[in-house]
């Protein structure tokens, strides 16, 4: 049996969502191109419009402010690159934080290579950015601020409404990477005072490969993909209708169950919190209160997080390590490093992320197995070797 505690990476597609998607693909009506002017095309267009209306309603937006994309990363890139392309300024200034997802950080790196100047504001030991630091970083050339709502690795919630208010006051655009927040927290674009907000279906029970971007009316944005006039001329290409219908149904269900899920995760989190209480030298890396309760990020000092993750996998428990591993390099998590953790502490970190279907029994079993593995790993691993990988070592990952 598999215990899946990696819901921040992806959630399982909900059966109700699959039914909604199947009705598009295999229902009694033909599935057409929503841009076609015949009855089949118009019927398909109506399905898409209904999905857009559902999403817009939940986010507090207007229908025409929702742009469907091929996922969260595409939405983020459309927001960041699209604003720069549309602004008409030669070298605009962009502000973000050191703990953003790579979709944001690498898009910013690309923009910096094209002449933009980028400021990354630091975070505190819990991963929170101080809105004052954002305010101080704003210059007359600042075009956009981009901050994630919820951190994917540690679950820390950022003070988005405060940042939104100051951006609005200073006349700077705000993009919110809400990929880990939508479907889990209440997200209202008016309350947040954001101009752009990206989200992804597979983080809340929808299909992979579909996401969206909220674009406040009047926000200057240029498309990245050119072609037809789809998605308000901001994203050319025939839409993924089944995916869009699935996204809307998943979001509708997640919104209905949101408060119950938060309550459920708070209870399950208490079980996971037994690990720092019952084992020596375990650090809780998430913010104690301002954290999405489905995520628990823990550092097991003197224990290799990668080995722990692999051992749990062998025992049927799927979690995630915070470290990325590429050929010849074991890089510690940039998020944990930005929070001030040492390399060794970052290499001992793992993330447990729960979903709506996670049970107390599964979490209890995870705690028991994790304790056993950590105790054994601490015995056999030399602390100085954790996270070390010499340049001449040809180690690699295979699937």
């Amino acid at each position, binding site marked *: 049996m598999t215990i899946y505690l990696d819901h921040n990476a992806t959630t399982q597609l909900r059966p109700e969502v699959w039914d909604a998607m199947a009705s598009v693909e295999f229902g009694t009506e033909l599935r057409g191109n929503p841009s076609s002017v015949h009855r089949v095309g118009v019927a398909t267009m109506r399905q898409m419009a209904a999905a857009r209306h559902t999403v817009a309603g939940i986010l507090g937006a207007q229908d025409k402010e929702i742009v469907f994309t091929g996922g969260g990363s595409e939405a983020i890139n459309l927001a960041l690159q699209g604003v720069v392309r549309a602004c008409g300024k030669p070298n605009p200034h962009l502000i973000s934080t050191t703990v953003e997802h790579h979709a944001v950080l690498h898009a910013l790196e690309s923009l910096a290579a094209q002449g933009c100047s980028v400021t990354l504001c630091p975070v505190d030991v819990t991963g929170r950015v101080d809105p004052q630091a954002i305010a101080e970083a704003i210059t007359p050339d600042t075009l956009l601020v981009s901050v994630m709502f919820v951190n994917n690795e540690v679950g820390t919630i950022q003070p988005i409404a405060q940042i939104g208010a100051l951006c609005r006051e200073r006349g700077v655009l705000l993009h919110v990477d809400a990929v880990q927040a939508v479907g889990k927290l209440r997200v209202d674009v008016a309350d947040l005072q954001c101009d752009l907000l990206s989200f992804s279906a597979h983080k809340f029970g929808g299909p992979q490969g579909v996401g969206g971007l909220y674009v406040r009316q009047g926000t200057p944005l240029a498309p990245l993909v050119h072609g037809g006039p789809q998605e308000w001329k901001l994203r050319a290409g025939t839409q993924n209708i089944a995916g869009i219908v699935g996204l809307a149904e998943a979001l509708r269900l997640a919104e209905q169950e949101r408060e119950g899920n938060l309550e459920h995760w708070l209870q399950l989190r208490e079980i996971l919190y037994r690990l720092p209480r019952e084992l020596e030298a375990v650090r809780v890396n998430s913010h104690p209160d301002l954290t999405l309760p489905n995520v628990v990020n823990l550092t097991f000092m003197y224990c*290799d997080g*990668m*080995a722990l993750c692999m051992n749990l996998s062998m025992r049927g428990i799927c979690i995630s390590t915070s470290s990325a591993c590429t050929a010849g390099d074991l890089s510690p998590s940039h998020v944990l490093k930005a929070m001030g953790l040492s390399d060794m502490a970052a290499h001992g970190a793992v993330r447990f992320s729960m979903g709506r279907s996670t049970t107390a029994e599964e979490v209890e079993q995870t705690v028991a197995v994790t304790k056993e593995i950590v105790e054994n790993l601490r015995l056999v691993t030399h602390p100085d*070797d954790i996270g070390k990988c010499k340049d001449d070592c040809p180690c690699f990952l295979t699937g």
Partner: protein
Amino acid sequence: MPKITLIVTPKKCHKCLQCEDLVARLLEQFPGQLEFVELDTTAEEVQQFGVVLPPMLLVDDFIAAAGKVPIYDALAKLIAAKLPKES
């Protein structure tokens, strides 16, 4: 009988070689009491482990080390605890 599995890269790195030495010492310390298999990462059997970070040393289904050389004494103690007690 405890089973030691060592997964190495086809072109063994220094850590793979150190792990081989370590296993040789274990086999010497526990003669006839351990089963030992060495696989390289291209072997079909390795697929069952999913993600592999060589050198990877397993004692039964416990991954004692991934990408590292484990501490010999601690590993020997772990293995000794798995052996049937002498009456």
